């Protein structure tokens, strides 16, 4: 026998069967009543409620059969569920469909079968209600009809099972939803009443256990924050009116007493007339959200405040020149409101070329992910003037770590650049003045470190100004001097007053004299921040002053000596003239020749004195001509001449010329020789056959000594200096004028040298004239001539 084919809606049928949740359940009286009734009405020993499963038919209720299920391919019902009507097989052993069925051929040897399909409202036949007998027979019309009605009853039971099952599912899901959600659920079933239903979560959100407080509108109102009552009930009314959804944020009082923010949502249910009858919804705890939102808002306000209060122009931009945000200064520069610019393209506000340049910079910053600082741009100012702008652009990462926006901070540096330029100019001017001042100018911090020195300073000490920076006087000067400077600086700092002083400072190991003013320099608070100084070198001035004083003394001494030595012969002359005239009156001629010769000697002495004085004064006034002079002939001729004048052929002369040639004005050399040799004859050789040595010595630095050594009585040490003074004579004689050695000394000084009496061993005197290079003097210029001219001039040395 072929097994019955499956119905076309087999899948839906099996799903429906599953939905019934009936397979393999315990027997139920409602079903058993049906099978019992079926047996009685159809007068059969067996009645079954058979449910056709995938591979089997299972009997929810059975009468007269022990098996609880049989294989589906043996089931008569497979055929029954294919149709809508009752299937009746009078004798199964004779029917094509069932005669080979093991249930027919073997026990229980079925012969008669009548089955009504259990077809659900939705059309699926889940099984059958069938009656079976062991003997062939038939069913009348009424019995078929009864069986059909009983089958409908079974279907109703099954239908009920499905509904119950669905309801159970729904209920369970709802329960899960209500319990599983973080929202608290409320249901105001009757808006006329106070009572509400709250889910357990609702209570817990407020800190209560379910049912710990009354779930009612009045409770809700009580928990509602006073400031939120009006708003909330306006929203409820709007929901009732249908003008707005109920979606409102309000605060409810937690059991702890604190208010927490909740988001309330709800829906209004209406009756057939559209009148609101019920309202249900949820509350969600949004306290954290509100806090986060508030914090975000606060940050936004803070950021805005900062942005708007900085003078720089700040723009936030994406990579396409869109302005995402900007500060007030930036908006002002565009002559716009902040809100009018946000979200708009940069090129709407800037010249196209500029905007394109900005975009290039923006992209560079975003592509590299590195800030670009100090971009110099030109903007147009409010009055069309060109502004110099310095812009820093910094990329900003989004949540994914991509650089998709940037902040540009633009600062107008026009004024500061101009100010810096002016400051530089003014500094340069000041520096030029300071550097060209002939004085040493400096400023030191109060801790003694140098702030500034002018060029004169660096030149003087050969120190670089960069070296001097942060150095102190202790790095530059000997400790003793640095201490002195420091003490004065501290005094100025303490007194807050300028200090004028004269000080001596070693420069290149030679002391220099300075007239210095040190003064405090004040900072903006009036505190002394530095000590400044201006030091003027007065060494020359002082030297000149001393020289002037010396000259004055010299002049005084000259006037004194001159008045004496010139007047002295006058006294003689006038005195004897007076005697002569009286003797002449008396006719007494005896003494007249003596008086006359005395007068003559006095007059001659006076003439010599005047001549020598003239010579001395000429020394400083006539230009000298220095040439290389051979010493030997000059000395020899001078000796010869002086010997004749003095009538002293007896003296023995020796020459010791280590140096043969001398750079000197020949006239000067002659003066030296005449005076020294003359003196040696007059004072150094009192006895006959005396000896005199005339010589020259070489000294370092091209200096030369000339000396004349005699072996006479010598000069007492206390007189050795005195004799170089004007009109100073040691001997009570009339041979000298007292000017000669003064002339020698003056010449020596003109050559940077000196004239002295050297200490000697043994008897006698050694006059030493040391000569250096010719010195320029204010009285007369000296020139050193070199080359061929020297030899020519040597021949023209005036001698004698």
């Amino acid at each position, binding site marked *: 026998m072929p097994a019955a084919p499956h119905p076309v809606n087999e899948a839906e049928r099996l799903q429906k069967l599953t939905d019934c949740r009936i397979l393999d359940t315990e027997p139920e009286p409602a079903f058993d009543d049906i099978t019992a009734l079926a047996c009685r009405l159809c007068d059969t020993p067996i009645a079954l409620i058979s449910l056709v499963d995938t591979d089997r038919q299972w009997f929810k209720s059975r009468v007269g059969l022990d098996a609880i299920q049989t294989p589906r391919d043996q089931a008569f019902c497979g055929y029954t569920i294919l149709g809508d009507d009752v299937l009746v097989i009078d004798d199964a052993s004779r029917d094509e469909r069932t005669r080979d069925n093991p249930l027919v051929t073997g026990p229980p040897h079925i012969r008669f079968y009548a089955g009504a399909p259990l077809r659900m409202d939705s059309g699926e036949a889940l099984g059958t209600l069938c009656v079976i007998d062991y003997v062939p027979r038939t069913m009348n019309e009424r019995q078929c009809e009864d069986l059909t009605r009983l089958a409908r009853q079974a279907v109703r039971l099954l239908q009920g099972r499905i509904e119950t099952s669905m309801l159970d599912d729904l209920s369970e899901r709802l329960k899960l939803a209500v319990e599983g959600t973080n929202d608290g659920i409320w249901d105001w079933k009757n808006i006329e009443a106070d009572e509400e239903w709250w889910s357990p979560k609702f209570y817990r959100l407020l800190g209560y256990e379910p049912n710990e407080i009354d779930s009612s509108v009045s409770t809700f109102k009580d928990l509602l924050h006073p400031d939120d009552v009006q708003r909330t009930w306006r929203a409820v009314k709007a929901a009732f009116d249908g003008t707005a959804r109920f979606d409102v944020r309000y605060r409810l009082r937690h059991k702890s007493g604190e208010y927490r923010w909740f988001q309330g949502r709800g829906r209004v249910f209406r009756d057939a007339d559209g009148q609101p009858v019920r309202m249900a919804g949820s509350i969600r705890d949004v306290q954290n959200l509100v806090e986060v939102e508030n914090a975000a808002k606060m940050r936004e306000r803070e950021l805005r405040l900062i942005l708007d209060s900085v003078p720089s122009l700040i723009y936030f931009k994406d990579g396409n020149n869109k302005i995402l945000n900007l500060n007030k200064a930036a908006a002002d520069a565009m002559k716009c409101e902040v809100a009018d610019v946000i979200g708009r393209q940069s090129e709407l506000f800037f010249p196209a070329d500029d905007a394109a340049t900005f975009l290039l910079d923006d992209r560079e910053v975003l592509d590299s992910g590195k800030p670009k600082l100090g971009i110099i741009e030109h903007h147009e100012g409010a009055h069309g003037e060109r502004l110099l702008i310095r812009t820093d652009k910094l990329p900003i990462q989004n949540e994914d770590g991509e650089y998709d926006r940037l902040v540009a901070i633009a600062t107008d540096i026009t004024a500061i650049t101009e100010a810096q330029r002016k400051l530089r100019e003014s500094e340069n001017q000041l520096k030029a003045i300071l550097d060209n001042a002939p004085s040493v100018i400096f400023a030191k911090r109060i801790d003694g470190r140098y702030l500034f020195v002018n060029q004169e300073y660096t030149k003087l000490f050969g120190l670089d100004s960069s070296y001097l920076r942060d150095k102190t006087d202790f790095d530059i000067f000997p400790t003793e001097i640095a201490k002195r400077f420091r003490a004065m600086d501290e005094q100025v700092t303490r007194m807050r007053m300028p200090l004028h002083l004269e000080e001596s400072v070693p420069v290149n190991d030679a002391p220099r004299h300075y007239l210095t003013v040190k003064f405090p320099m004040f900072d903006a608070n009036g505190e002394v921040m530095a000590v400044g100084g201006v030091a003027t070198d007065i060494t020359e001035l002082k030297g000149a002053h001393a020289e002037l004083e010396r000259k004055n003394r010299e002049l005084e001494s000259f006037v004194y000596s001159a008045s004496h030595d010139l007047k002295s012969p006058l006294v003689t002359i006038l005195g004897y003239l007076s005697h002569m005239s009286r003797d002449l009156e008396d006719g007494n001629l005896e003494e007249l020749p003596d008086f006359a010769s005395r007068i003559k000697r006095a007059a001659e002495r006076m003439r010599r004195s005047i001549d020598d004085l003239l010579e001395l004064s000429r020394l400083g006034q006539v230009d000298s001509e220095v040439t290389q002079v051979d010493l030997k002939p000059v000395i020899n001729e001078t000796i010869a001449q002086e010997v004749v004048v003095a009538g002293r052929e007896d003296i023995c002369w020796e020459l010791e010329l280590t140096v043969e040639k001398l750079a000197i004005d020949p006239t000067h050399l002659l003066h030296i020789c005449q005076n020294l040799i003359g003196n040696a004859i007059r004072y150094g050789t009192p006895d006959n056959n005396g000896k005199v040595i005339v010589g020259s010595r070489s000294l370092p630095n091209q200096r030369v000594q000339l000396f004349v050594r005699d072996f006479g009585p010598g000069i007492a040490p206390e007189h050795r200096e005195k004799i170089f003074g004007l009109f100073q*004579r040691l001997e*009570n004689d009339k041979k000298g004028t007292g000017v000669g050695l003064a002339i020698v000394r003056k010449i020596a000084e003109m050559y940077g040298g000196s004239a002295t009496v050297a200490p000697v061993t043994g008897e006698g005197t050694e006059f030493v004239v040391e000569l250096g290079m010719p010195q320029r003097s204010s009285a007369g210029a000296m020139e050193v001539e070199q080359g061929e001219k020297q030899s020519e001039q040597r021949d023209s040395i005036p001698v004698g």
Partner: protein
Amino acid sequence: MKSNLNSAIRFLLVEDDEDHADLIRRAILGATADVVIDSVGDGEEALAHLMQTKPHEGAKRPDVILLDINLPKLNGHQVLQKIKQSNALADIPVIMLTTSQSELDRDRALMNDADSFVSKPTNEEEFSQLIAHLSKYWATMGMA
């Protein structure tokens, strides 16, 4: 005071200029005959004379010293200083002689207790004045 009215007044003339010494001597002798004049030519010799040291061992103590300022070796000021520093000599009157009109010379001389200060005479009239000066000293000495 060693001198008295009966004996001649003894001068020590310290003068390096021989002509000047002669002129002064003549002037003094022209004014009065009752004098003795010792002459020396420089400052060292003057002190040797006053202190009776070599070669002036027998020298007489003068009643008046006429002292030129411009002298070789020791000048007049130095000699005057030594005289005034010496207990034995300090009370001998010293008259300074000078050709210059230098105030410095005058001041220095008076500071060293010179008793008088005179310019060297150049004519008869000035010699008379010098003598008048000297007479005044004699009178002073006489009264003493």
